[in-house]
């Protein structure tokens, strides 16, 4: 098992380097360091010297991938790419273009992201599984047809609509909750309730349909027939036996997203004014702050790889037949 984990972690290195190269390439295809300097220096009284000074100050005065002024290995190592990438592997994210320490910002901002993402994940999972099992319970009835239609309707609507509708009805018209914002401690509750509700509702359609498919596969198996033959109630059959056996794909699907909960939601956080990592990333893209964008992409990729690893490990937990070698 340990050898397997080590091997997977070693595989992660070329993947992360590849992701980094792609991030670099995509970012600098549309932005040059001069462009970034101009955006940060504003439009008034900007001199070429000021642009050069800004680039030097922020380390953008080196060539991107190949330094022709250097010979040998240094032609590759004395570049912006190596400067900016090597430290990432030791989780040294450096400074944002406005001088703030990125690692500190990430540490601060991951908590609001988690405050939204974790309840959405837990409540959403419970709601999706429950809805899917209920539809299995009522399969073949009008209730199931109505449920499927409802779920398709829910998944057909843009998540933006849920946000705007939630803000309009719950916060503006009925005035139950603040329309946006965030607070610390117990105050956080009234701010996260609406985004959590909206996010759960937005994910219900696709989530419940996906789990329904899993449970439909399980419901025709022999152990279900045996359980019914033993005289167990249908609800007991579903929530005890079918749910337990259906947990393998559910668990593996859920585990893979667990680490990504830290990175938050780009759209939800922006609309609800949640100071998490999702809005951090969006702001950085808008401000063309490469240091943050690169750090967040790297972090997201690393967490995703971690999620995949955890998924593989979780197989061994939920299905003893699986052996990792």
């Amino acid at each position, binding site marked *: 098992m340990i050898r397997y984990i080590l091997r997977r972690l070693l595989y992660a290195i070329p993947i992360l380097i590849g992701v980094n190269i792609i991030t670099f390439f995509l970012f600098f295809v549309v932005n040059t360091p001069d462009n970034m300097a101009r955006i940060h220096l504003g439009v*008034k009284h900007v*001199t070429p010297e000021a642009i050069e000074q800004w680039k030097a100050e922020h380390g953008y005065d080196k060539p991107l991938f190949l330094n022709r002024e250097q010979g040998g290995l240094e032609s590759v190592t004395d570049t912006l790419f190596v400067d900016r990438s090597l430290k990432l592997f030791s989780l040294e994210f450096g400074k944002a273009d406005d001088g*703030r320490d990125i690692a500190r910002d990430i540490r601060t901002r991951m908590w609001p992201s988690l405050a939204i993402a974790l309840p959405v994940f837990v409540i959403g999972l419970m709601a999706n599984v429950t809805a899917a099992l209920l539809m299995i319970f009522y399969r073949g009835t009008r209730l199931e047809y109505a449920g499927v239609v409802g779920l398709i309707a829910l998944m057909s609507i843009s998540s933006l609509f849920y946000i705007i509708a939630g803000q309009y009805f719950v916060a503006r018209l*009925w*005035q139950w909750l603040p*329309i946006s*914002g965030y607070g610390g401690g117990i105050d956080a509750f*009234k701010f996260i309730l609406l985004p959590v509700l909206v996010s759960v509702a937005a994910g219900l359609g696709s989530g419940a349909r996906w789990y329904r498919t899993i449970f439909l596969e399980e419901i025709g198996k022999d152990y279900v027939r045996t359980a019914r033959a033993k005289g167990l109630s249908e609800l007991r059959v579903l929530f005890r036996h079918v749910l337990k056996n259906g947990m393998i794909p559910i668990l593996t699907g859920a585990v893979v997203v667990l680490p990504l909960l830290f990175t938050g939601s780009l759209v939800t956080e922006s*609309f609800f004014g949640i100071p998490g990592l999702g*809005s951090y990333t969006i702001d950085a893209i808008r401000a063309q702050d490469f240091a943050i964008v690169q750090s967040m992409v790297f972090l997201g990729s690393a967490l995703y790889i971690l999620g995949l690893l955890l998924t593989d490990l979780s197989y061994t937990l939920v299905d003893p037949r699986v052996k990792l070698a």
Partner: protein
Amino acid sequence: MRNWIFALLLPALLSGCDEAWNNPYPQEDAGSNTLYTVFEERPKHLDPARSYSSNEVEFTGQIYEPPLQYHFLKRPYALEPLTTEGMPAVRFWDAAGRELPAGSPPETIARTTYDISIRPGIRYQPHPAFAVLPDGKPRYFGLAAQDIEAIGTLGDFEYTGSRELTAEDYVYEIKRLASPRLNSPIFGLMSEYIEGLDELNRRLVQAGKGLSKDAWLDLRPHDFPGAQATGKYSFRITLKTHYPQFIYWLAMPFFAPIPWEAERFYAQPGMAERNLNLDWFPAGTGPFMLSENDPNRRMVLARNPNFHGETYPVEGEAGDAAKGLLADAGKPLPLIERAVFTLEKEDIPQWNKFLQGYYDASGISSDNFDQAVQFSPEGEADLTPDMKDKGIRLVTAVATSNRYMGFNMKDPLIGQAGGEAARKLRQAISIAVDYEEFISIFLNGRGIAAQGALPPGIFGYQEDHNPVVYAGPGKRRSLAEAKRLLNEAGYPNGRNAKTGEPLVLYFDTAATGPDAKSRLDWLIKQFRKLDIQLVIRATDYNRFQDKMLRGNAQIFEWGWNADYPDPENFLFLLYGPNAKAGRNGENAANYGNPEFDRLFAQMKGMANGPERQQVIDRMTAILREDAPWLFGFFPKGFSLQHAWVGNVKPNLMANNTLKYRRIDAAFRERSRAEWNRPVLWPLGVGAIALLALVWPAWRQYRRHEEGRA
């Protein structure tokens, strides 16, 4: 179902039933003398040497105190002492070092000195950089990284201190403008004027080479002739030229004092990793200090307990007393205890919170314009009845900025090389592009069509019309006249008279997206009125800037926001030696006219008065005739203020007006309670709907179980 209702009711249960459920602020803030407002983008720099954007100066203006400020109420804008004993003494010197009398011809003036005396007794806000041990030594100097492991923010330091403001602090800040580590946006400009500033920069570059990036570069030993303390409370700024507009810069935070102790304090190990620096935690003498700085969520300005004291102005312009703007005359400032700035990036939440009374003021986005404003048959903007019912007030002001369309005068077809034909072509286009229509369609009427380069509020502005474009006030010349000019330019019906080729012009822009597209389509339509084909060359911002720097664009759109209320700050945008192409100046059109340039040099050194007005009128006439710009429009700012906000008078030059603002907190509390009663009937409807769903499910379940039995 009960759980759902409980969950929805929980906020109210937690916060007490008498409070509105949707109140985004803590209960303990209720009734406090606090102003609530927003910031839409987190400021990048709060260091006065670096901050220039309006969203940064909004904070630094309240925290730092440059020597001068603009009078809050008087118009035209007038400077007055802020921390100084009277206005600076300005003296002129010739090349031989002899003093010249005031009013000497600008060409004889080789140097200008500003002698400034500050008032004794002004103290800095409480700050750990000033904290001292019982023996008088600094408490927090010489810290190691492990000493501040438990520190997360500036407020975590147990001790603070203060000290008196001295003239050296002003000198220190002027030196900081040249620091290679700060990259001040005005260094390039100021090095053209302040004696020895560029040389100081070179010295500091050398001095910084031996130091690590985070180590403190002490500027105190680096004396330079441009700024020198002449006493504990007096200092002198020396300019190497005659630049009368320099005095306006003395009202900007760039020239606010910085104590060396703050730089020394923040340069210690571990501070940068905690974002503890002057960019995020200022140290000023102003009426407010930044008591909470979470630029990702909210920033709070609290009254500076050490503020030296200032009183509300006792005089203003005519009509101010009738508007209640002098009701607080003579009262000590600031009038509020705190100002809470909440990060609000989206329009919808911002607007709704304003309507709910949780923000005291708001701008008006295009989406909300019709909900807030209606126009009378006479074209006057007024509030809708809904807004009036809430007691909201509309405050409008024409901005001291412009938005114009420029012709690149280096372009062979449309520029100066095109001679008289090109001039007529530019004039024809000036007539055809209908800015009144633009303002109506795209700005909801929030702007006025410009008749020249100077906006209202700037000396030299005349309420006349551009005779090249308008036949009379508000009466644009006809398309027939534009076509006649086009014909005379050699393009009858939009075709080259010699070759028969259609006239194709190019508009360079960095604007993209749906909003930009509709504007660009409108522009194409305007040119089509003259049968001119306008081709849009959309590009990214950087390439657009490159094109402008190289003089490769043909037609473009640009704007300028006044730094100070002097005509020089607008007319220099057309001064030949300021050309953007090749010189990196602000003359984006690369316009050059010898007479205009000569008059500009003359006007720059003149005091406001009839003679200066005459020169400006002549310059305006030249511009109208040459038409290097379509003068475009001057934006008109609309803002909404709740009835409990007092002392609101637009001051487009001052950036420190927060101290004058008054809040009736009790009135606000009553309004919030009245406007934010939760609507409960949807809970009942939701419960019934849920029952309606559960009931058939329950029946089905029973049937199912009975069937199995």
